[in-house]
């Protein structure tokens, strides 16, 4: 059992509490604040769009829905690989853990890559966040909210990929066992949450 895990799953504290160890509870609590953060971004989008519908175009006119559908597909797959990694270590399957983690990292990285490609293309077409330089169809609030929401989501994916790489690094050193897999579980929670946010964003940004 690795050291920091002892500290968080303190045997002296069989406290009722949530019946969940500290690290996992902490991650859930952190995710609640993330919900509120995305609320302020998505909420602003909804309000601005409601106030100025003329700034938006029909779905698919500017944004490339099929490309993003592929991306959505990727992210959903990465959720499944992530949960597979978790299931593997629950069984003590070290090899499975590493493979599934690697798969998750690769898929996550390709998501970011595709998004980067999408951004460059859109910017090239004049779909930009700033008022003065906007030339595509629709108007500037469209671009601004689009980049705001997808950008912060992309940043979350990027951070997730980095954290996953760290977990993979630790997994290579055999840090996780079927008894102690806190690190894998909480990065999984974060990763699924980011996927969940994307599910919402994909619908309201690309399809509505």
């Amino acid at each position: 059992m690795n050291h920091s895990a002892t500290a968080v799953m303190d045997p002296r504290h069989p406290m009722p509490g949530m019946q969940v160890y500290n690290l996992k509870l902490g991650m859930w609590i952190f995710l609640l604040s993330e919900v509120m953060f995305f609320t302020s971004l998505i909420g602003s989008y909804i309000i601005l769009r409601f106030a100025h519908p003329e700034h938006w175009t029909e779905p698919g006119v500017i944004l490339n829905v099929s490309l993003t559908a592929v991306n959505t597909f990727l992210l959903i797959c990465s959720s499944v690989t992530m949960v597979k990694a978790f299931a593997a270590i629950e069984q003590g399957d070290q090899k499975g853990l590493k493979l599934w983690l690697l798969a998750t990292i690769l898929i996550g990285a390709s998501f970011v890559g595709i998004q980067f490609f999408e951004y460059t293309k859109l910017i090239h077409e004049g779909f930009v966040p700033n008022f003065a330089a906007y030339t595509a169809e629709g108007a500037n609030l469209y671009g601004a909210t689009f980049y705001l929401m997808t950008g912060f989501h992309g940043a979350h994916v990027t951070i997730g990929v980095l954290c996953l790489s760290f977990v993979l690094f630790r997994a290579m050193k055999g840090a996780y066992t079927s008894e102690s897999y806190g690190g894998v579980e909480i990065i999984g929670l974060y990763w699924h949450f980011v996927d969940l946010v994307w599910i919402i964003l994909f619908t309201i940004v690309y399809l509505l």
Partner: protein
Amino acid sequence: MEAKEHQKQPYILIWVILLVLTLGELGYAFMDLPKIVLALGLIAMAIWKALLVAIYYMHLRHEPRRMWILAASPLPLAVILVVTVLTEY
């Protein structure tokens, strides 16, 4: 750790459902329906997907009831904020 019963999980089944729903959304979004019908249907499907992820992949299914309440706590606030401000327009 609490969860040994995670073993037989319908992870793959959920994955399939998520993909089907995504395809469903894609098809539905470009149908020739009134905007409001489109919006409601799409949002319903998105929420469905989100719930599947939370319940199965984030294992809410195996958490105590308190955790559900904890996880749901910000949602009313989000709704209050957005709905209230929307009444201004």
